[in-house]
């Protein structure tokens, strides 16, 4: 909070040239001589002369680790992350389906293999509404400038530090200014601006400013062979897809590596949590300081899809260019800004609010309570005034500190409705499934979205999804992917509330193995998303969600919901497999038996075969009823009938290898094609199976009765 307050103060200062400390009571003069006989120590005046205001930019330039720039590898990631977050936020606010291009160029491709880092140029282009010319400096050149900090509304960024900090980091490490090209109307020219931040003044200096027709910048299409060949078919940075938008380029000293916590993982996860966004990613041509000299995965080129398939929007890799497709075609619901909930404010904040209210409107406490808080009705406001020992006429500015304290206590005891939840935009069950489907190659997917809940007076909502089986590794611990307001959290997993929730959930109940106090083992990916107007991070670098009981409880409930669906599926799968095996055994020998009977007795082979086959089918059905129900014959449930569940028949090992179509058909008949979803299978590993979409079936209830908080 100190940093923010300082930021506010520095912002209110008129001019940088006069940025002298307010605290320096007087000008230090040469005549103020030190006391004699003292070598050590300084006078208050001397000290005063050195005390001066600190620019926030300066502060962060020295404390870059607080913002996620602690090492070259993380700096690269943070820069991409901030730019992508901004772009997605801008597109959504402008009501545009996000179309992003992320390009990382290695500017020192000839460096020695041993060098740990390199200079990179990161460019993120979006098709958002663009930025009006006069705001460019503010948005990209000042720390703590933004639209998101002061309001209680769900968004990716919160403090307005991100992109400007990245630009500053770039400037510090390479001396190169940020390059911005932005276009707000398709008919107008774009602005091209070069910004260099002055850390002393917290102000950007424009080093170049011109108008250009070149948007998206043509040279970006020419970065790699992959981008060139995609652009040749209008599949990359086409002006048609980017009629407006913004392109930000930052040069910085960084380090590119694949794996956990990499740019690749960040974008992959972003794609999962933002199924409405289409992201094209051009990674740098080589990793820096990597031990092996492998340039790109060998299979990436070999299995590249041709242009025809790119249009089908399968997540794919094309000569090293990775494309995360759009899986749903609607934007997340628009969120409304809300007033704070009385239970969510602290005493200090309350006092500050009273002071500000007095300054601005000079109204009564009664009115203040109704205006400045949500869920405070006229009668509640009256009751609260009374509890504070004031009347409804008492002016807000006249509230004594003791009264404020009483008021604060009354807040805690008052019976108030929960804050409105239209400030939240959960991803939604169907969208989560679509996102997981395109990002994770599994056989079973389940998702659940909890009802909104409150922590410290702030609404939040937890969503969870799981993907199971398929190509996921079976022997390893399950992978937990975490999101806060759709932004992937890549570090400090074990410090995160969500990770604890996963470990505390009893996965054994759902047919999985789970070492004590750990995440379950098996072919499982667990997704947890927290949507809130204010996500309580454990630190400014926004890497882990603080461990509030209310939050962890909701997470566990969401996970249990998914777990139950998985458990039900696994039981069903086991049953299907057992039934399949049994029928398989019978059918396998029926042919031989019929032939032998024909041989000995002269019976008609076909006739006997058909008769026996009919019996086999009848008997396997009966056997299952006896086997699986407690003496009762109950209609078997199909796990895919559950809400929020997806089953990819092709990915089920036992069924996929069976050449008997009957087995497959009878259990997994396709119901409805995945609506609104360019469903498809992925991917990164370079394998693309276009026909998989047809095999995907979708819970019908999902289509018919969307949950309350879903987009549609």
């Amino acid at each position: 909070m100190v940093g923010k307050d300082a930021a506010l103060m520095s912002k209110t200062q008129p001019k940088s040239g006069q940025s002298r400390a307010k605290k320096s009571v007087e000008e230090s003069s040469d005549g103020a001589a030190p006391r004699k006989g003292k070598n050590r120590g300084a006078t208050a005046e001397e000290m005063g002369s050195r005390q001066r205001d600190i620019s926030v930019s300066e502060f962060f330039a020295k404390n870059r680790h607080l913002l996620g720039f602690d090492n070259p590898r993380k700096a690269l990631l943070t820069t991409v992350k901030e730019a992508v977050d901004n772009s997605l936020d801008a597109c959504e606010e402008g009501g545009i389906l996000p179309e992003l291009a992320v390009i990382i160029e290695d500017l020192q491709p000839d460096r020695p293999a041993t060098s740990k880092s390199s200079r990179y140029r990161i460019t993120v282009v979006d098709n958002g509404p663009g930025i009006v010319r006069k705001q460019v400096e503010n948005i990209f050149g000042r720390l703590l400038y933004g639209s998101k900090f002061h309001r209680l509304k769900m968004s990716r960024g919160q403090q307005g530090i991100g992109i400007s900090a990245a630009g500053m980091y770039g400037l510090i490490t390479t001396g190169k200014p940020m390059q911005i090209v932005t276009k707000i109307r398709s008919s107008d020219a774009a602005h091209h601006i070069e910004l260099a931040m002055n850390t002393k003044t917290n102000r950007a200096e424009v080093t170049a400013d011109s108008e250009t027709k070149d948007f998206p910048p043509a040279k970006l299409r020419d970065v790699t062979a992959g981008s060139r060949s995609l652009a040749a078919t209008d599949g990359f940075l086409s002006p048609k897809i980017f009629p407006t938008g913004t392109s930000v380029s930052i040069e910085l000293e960084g380090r590119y590596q694949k794996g956990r916590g990499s740019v690749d993982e960040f974008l992959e996860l972003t794609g999962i949590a933002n199924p409405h966004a289409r992201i094209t990613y051009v990674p740098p041509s080589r990793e820096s300081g990597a031990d092996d000299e492998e340039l790109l995965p060998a299979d990436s080129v070999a299995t590249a899809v041709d242009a025809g398939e790119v249009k089908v929007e399968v997540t794919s890799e094309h000569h090293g260019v990775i494309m995360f497709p759009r899986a749903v075609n609607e934007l997340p619901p628009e969120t409304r800004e809300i007033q704070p909930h009385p239970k969510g404010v602290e005493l200090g904040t309350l006092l500050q609010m009273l002071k500000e209210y007095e300054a601005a409107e000079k109204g009564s406490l009664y009115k203040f309570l109704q205006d400045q808080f949500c869920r405070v009705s006229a009668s509640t406001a009256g009751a609260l005034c009374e509890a504070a020992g004031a009347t409804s006429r008492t002016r807000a500015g006249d509230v004594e500190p003791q009264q404020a304290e009483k008021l604060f206590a009354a807040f805690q005891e008052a019976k108030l409705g929960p804050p409105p939840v239209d400030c939240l935009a959960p991803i939604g069950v169907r969208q989560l499934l679509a996102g997981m489907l395109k990002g994770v190659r599994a056989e079973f997917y389940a998702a659940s979205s909890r009802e909104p809940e409150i922590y410290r007076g702030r609404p939040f909502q937890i969503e969870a999804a799981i993907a199971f089986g398929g190509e996921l590794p079976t022997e390893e611990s399950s992978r937990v992917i975490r999101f806060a307001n759709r932004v992937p959290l890549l570090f400090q997993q074990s410090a995160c509330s969500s990770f604890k929730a996963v470990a505390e959930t009893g996965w054994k109940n759902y047919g999985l193995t789970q070492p004590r106090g750990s995440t379950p083992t098996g072919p499982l990916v667990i997704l947890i998303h927290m949507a809130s107007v204010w996500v309580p991070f454990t630190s400014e670098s926004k890497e882990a969600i603080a461990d509030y009981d209310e939050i962890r409880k909701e997470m566990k409930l969401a996970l249990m919901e998914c777990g139950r669906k998985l458990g039900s599926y696994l039981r069903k799968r086991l049953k299907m497999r057992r039934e399949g095996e049994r029928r398989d055994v019978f059918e396998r020998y029926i042919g031989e038996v019929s032939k032998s009977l024909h041989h000995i007795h002269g019976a008609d082979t076909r006739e006997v075969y058909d008769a026996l086959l009919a019996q086999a089918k009848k008997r396997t059905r009966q056997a299952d009823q006896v086997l699986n129900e407690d003496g009762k014959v109950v209609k078997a449930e199909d796990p895919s009938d559950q809400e929020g569940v997806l089953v990819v028949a092709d990915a089920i090992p036992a069924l996929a290898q069976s050449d008997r179509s009957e087995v497959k058909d009878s259990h997994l008949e396709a119901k409805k094609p995945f609506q609104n979803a360019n469903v498809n299978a992925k991917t990164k590993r370079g394998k693309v199976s276009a026909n998989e979409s047809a095999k995907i079936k979708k819970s019908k209830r999902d289509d018919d009765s969307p949950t309350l908080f879903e987009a549609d």
Partner: protein
Amino acid sequence: MAKKITKQVSTKARDINTHKKIYVLAETVTKAALSGKEPIVSVPTRSRSNTIWNKKRGILEMGNATQDRQLFNLNQAKIFMQTLLHSGSIKDLIEADKTLSLRGMFYKGLHTVAGTKEKTFVDQTESDGILEDLEVSLTALREELHIFAKKAGSIVGNITLIDSGDEIDCRRMGSGGYAIPSIVEPDVIQFKKCEAKFILHVEKNTVWSRFNEDRFWEKHNCILTEGGGQPPRGVRRLLRRMHEELKLPVYCLLDCDPWGHYIYSVIKQGSISLAFESQRLAIPEAKFLGIRAKDYKACGLSDDVQIALNDNDIKRAKEIAAYPWFQGHKPWQKEIEGLLTNGFKMEVESLITKDISYVTEEYVPQRLKAKDWLE
């Protein structure tokens, strides 16, 4: 030649019978299948529980219990298929008038199940079990199914046999002896001339060779047989036929251990798995000449011949003692007790420590003379 013709006639009659039984089996299954009933093959149970000790006749007999082989049972589906497959093979053999070994039958039925990578038989053991089942369920003997086992067992002695029309003089068999075939039924083997007064059956080939080299059969006017451990059906059937038709007593010289006792039990009463054949194979009057538990002291053997009983041996010995046919038999109870008290086993070869030919020149002649045996 006249004999040969009769043989063929009798074979034909038996073959027609077997052929019909197989046809009936297939017909039952087909009818069940077409009428939507469960196809079942009924097989008499070949287990200890379904083995009855006929005290009066002194042999083991098979009870009436049967098991159903069901096609629609996960554990039996394959066995069911194999049973019908082998039935078909036997039909082929009968029609072609040829015989196959057990191994040959395994290969005859062996192929990949259509539409899978699975073979009809994993190994010969599976196939052998099915054939034994077929014998009992068709109440046909193995030779009637045109199947034979590999030869195991030798014979020498004062006897002349006819085997498939060829004259076999068992006095002129050199050091190897005449290998006893698997099928020794009268239509294959006839006894032409026999001067021998008794049969000495020894456990294994090594001991048999000792006796043959010493011309024991010549000196004592007997027949000398050997069954390679537990004697196969051919050997047992031949012993039984010679015992029955030529009225020759059978004396067994076996090791002093539970295994030797069991071999004696099989020769005398029949085995559990072939209980249905006991009446053709068992020799209730067979006698156990040795080695006896008391011989360690009686013959003055050295410590070196002792082979300590292991836990398994002790368990087995107690099991044998509990067999109904040994249970009420005091000398046998005493014998097994003696073995357990000794705490060690002795092989027939242990007598060689006394002298190379001690067993042929002293041990057996003395015991026979003293009529010192168990029965």
